């Protein structure tokens, strides 16, 4: 994992917020996580196989996703399925960009959407797992990257 790769993933997410809502997202201090996973209520995970193994996930709380869904779909009170779709949309964007910018080293799986807090999610990521807090409108989400 290089700084450029990690920065690329972060930029995709922050630019997504800016493109969709016109309001850019910031990042917190990145850190390494080895035990308890940093997982919030809604998570979209992309598994990566091939020569570079591991996974990337984006996880957020309901408040952030509701706000984002309202912005895009004009839904006042989106249900959980809509929020999960929202995470899926964001994860797809990450996957699409990864596909475009990296070569065959990244064989990308179909994004997996998770509601709740699975405990085994770190198993899918290869250590060291970098957690990047994403801050948008005072709400927090996490981007986790664990790649060989």
């Amino acid at each position, binding site marked *: *994992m*290089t*700084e450029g790769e*990690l*920065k690329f993933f*972060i930029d995709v997410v922050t630019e997504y917020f800016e493109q969709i809502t016109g309001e850019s997202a*910031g*990042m*917190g*201090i*990145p*850190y*390494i*996580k*080895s*035990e308890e996973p*940093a997982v919030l209520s809604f998570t979209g995970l*992309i598994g990566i196989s*091939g*020569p570079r193994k591991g996974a990337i996930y984006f996880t957020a709380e309901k408040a952030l996703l509701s706000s984002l869904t309202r912005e895009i779909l004009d839904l006042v009170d989106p249900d959980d399925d809509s929020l999960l779709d929202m995470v899926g949309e964001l*994860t*797809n*964007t990450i*996957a*699409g960009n990864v*596909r475009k910018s990296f*070569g*065959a*080293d990244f*064989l*990308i*799986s*179909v*994004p997996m959407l998770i509601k709740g807090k699975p405990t085994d999610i770190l198993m899918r990521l290869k*250590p*060291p797992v*970098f*957690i990047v*807090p994403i801050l948008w409108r005072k709400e927090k989400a996490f981007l986790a990257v664990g790649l*060989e």
Partner: protein
Amino acid sequence: MHPTPVDVLWILIASALVFVMRLGFAMLESGLVRSKNSINVSAKVLTDLGVALIAFWVVGFGIMFGTSWKGLWGTNDFLLDFGSLWTSLFFLFHAMFASTGATIVSGAVAERIRFSSYLLITLLFAAVIYPVLGHWVWGGSLTGTTVGWLGKLGFRDFAGSTVVHSTGGWVSLAVILILGPRQGHYNQDGSVNRVTGAGLQTSIFGTILLWFGWFGFNGGSTLALNDQVPAIILKTSFSGAAGMLTALFLGWRLRGYPDVSLLINGALAGLVGATASAPWISTGSSLIVGAISALVMLALEYLLDRWRIDDAVTAIPVHLGAGIWGTLAVGLFGDPHLLDTGLNWEQQTLIQLLGILACGAWAFGVTWGVAFVVNRFRRFRVTSADEAAGLNVIEHKASTELYDLFRTLEEQSRSGDLNLRAPVEPFTEVGQIASQYNKVMDRLQENLVAKADYLSILNNVHEGLFLIDSGGRIGPFYSSVLEEFLGSVPLAGANFAQVLSPLVNPAVMEPWKDFHDVLFNSQIDEQAVARLNPLRQVELWTNNAPGSGTTRHARFQFRRLTENGQVVRVMVILRDVSSEIELQKNLETQKTERESEMELFYRILHIAPELLVDFLAGFDQKSRQINLLMEAGQHTPQDVLKHTFRVLHGLKGEASLLDLPFLVSSIHDIENEIQALEHKPDLQNSDFLSLALKLGRFQETGRELSQLVQKLRNFQTNIAQADVKASHGLVSALEGLAQRTAGKLGKMVSLKTSLNFEGTLAREDLSFWQEILAQLVKNAIVHGIELPEERLRHGKNKVGQITLTAEVHDHYVVRAKDDGQGIDLEGLKKKALEKGYDPQTVAHWSRSDVVRFLFTGGVSTAPTITEDAGRGVGLSFVSSRLSERGGRIAVSFHKGHYLEFVLTLPQRR
């Protein structure tokens, strides 16, 4: 009337000639219709002869020539009794006329009328329509008088331009209007699809025969062989010739070629035109009559097509059109003196016109009325399917080889069954066509089978396989897997470069155009082509949905296909080599991992394990401390950096103490990063990325170290366990040996072991002791332990007891004791004597001497040699193995009670 014999002969000949006209009609009509209807048309010509002949005899003749009722129809001579020669001759001649008139209809209505409908029309014609009209014109001629109303008015029709030909034409017209045109004869725009007749040459022969018959038709109408006959025949022929030439040249001019059908119809029109007037017009007039007959025929043919009235053989223009004209020509060109009606030409012409109208009204009116009514109950026309199939088969089940061939082709086109073959009639043209067609089908089928095999290969091969031509276009056939690589866009005919471009890096395609030229340049050899191939290995996008799409590594190979030394096409083979590449990368990764692990191993080899374990525990704890500090987000970035620095610095000191320079260097690098960040103005969170990555790598090194240490510890534990297992295995093996040996000798034994070798017994020592202990156990059972009965007799437990103990201090001390019979000193002495020892010496052997003898080779007290004992080498072996390693053996025994060996061996250093 009393005809002369010459007249009789002439009328008979003329009747025969008129009869021959039937053959002419049959040939004419069957040649003009399609072969699928030719038999039907000919059958009608034959059938109407029978119908007309009988009908004319039963009623027709009476109506035509019987005693007149007011000039309208005859009233007697039905079922005529041929009482006189004249009556017979007269009937014969007119019966031929009646049937000829009916035959005209058969051609016009051909190709779509039911056979039964045609018979009805023929009956109507011969029994009613023709006789009534004949009565009007020719009534009384049997007796040389004129009784018909038209005849009395001066209407003249010498041989039947109106009575026979026009009547046939009118009847035809009425039936055609009821039937409608043949399927597909007229297009939407009014143009005509001309039918290709079964054989125009047959029609020409038929026309010649008709012309010949006309000699009798017109020449015989004098009913006597007088001086007029040759002129009548000549003028008839002149008219026919004029008609033929007029139609020929006019048609040639209009259509641009000498149309055979116009040749035929022009001649017939001329012959019909002269039929009414031949005796009364001049030779010159006969030419005019004939020429105008042809013009009328052409005009009427044109009009009928415009009005979409489909006359299959142009019978109406010929017989009705020329018949009307010929009838008028009597007034226009006839010599009034010869006509002898007392009318001038205008009056004569008007009377002729009246006759024409009366004939039309009667013949057309009656036929149309009857046909209309009957058609309401039973359709005159065959079904569309029957019409398409043809009336030969539908009406008569009469097939022709051409029809059979056609049916086969039709069935084949409908079903697509390539196994069908056309019936081959030998020695016919159609048979030869069918035979050739079958050969074509054989080859086609072979090719299709070959193609099916080829396609089957393409569908199952795992490689993308296709051809490109010199224009870079993909060929029509390619392996189905190709679509997985290049997408499912229509690939056949598509430009290869255009299909590939969106799927690869643009830079890959840049040299393609030049390479394409190279590919099709036969001067450049294959090796150079392979070397220049820009697609030797490319990364290929698959065209999936965003996110789930993947890329593959693909390898393109090009094989040139040449014809006459020129490259005409190139076969492209596309292979997915992703797994190959992935495997290669995995192997490289594994190799790197192994190397880095070995490197780590060498770096920690010098450190005392307990110190390393303690250091790693601290490393782990401090790493977590740093991670939690950064995760908590409660501190300012500056604080985070400060704390992290402090923790890392402590760790660096420990690493130095343990002489782990690679860790020291790594921490030092991170410290530099931290100090750089501390001094960075406007510190951003994104600036921490580099630090995070360095910390990640550092912690990863710690994790790898822990894993390596864990692996080493596991390895050590496994080795220790292996020794314990080995020791356990020895005990169990000795137990098994004791029981097996005792069992074979019928003895009972119990083995007690206390081998305290664990943790100290080196692997080579284990092997040594295995050998020794096995010998001692066997020795005890074979020579020491008694049989159970003997033991009981001596007051012992029937189960013998063997005890093996091993202790390790400075020395191995191994004891093997059994409660058997001890050593039989006397028995051993005897054995020594047997072996040739000096008896006097043996007699003086002490207890120790006897025991020493026991350890020499070849001494055994066992009665026989078995697998377990008897060779006398066991104790000797034990003694020599011990001596080799500086060991000693002590023996103590009490005869009848026990024997114990105590083996001492210095432990190896």
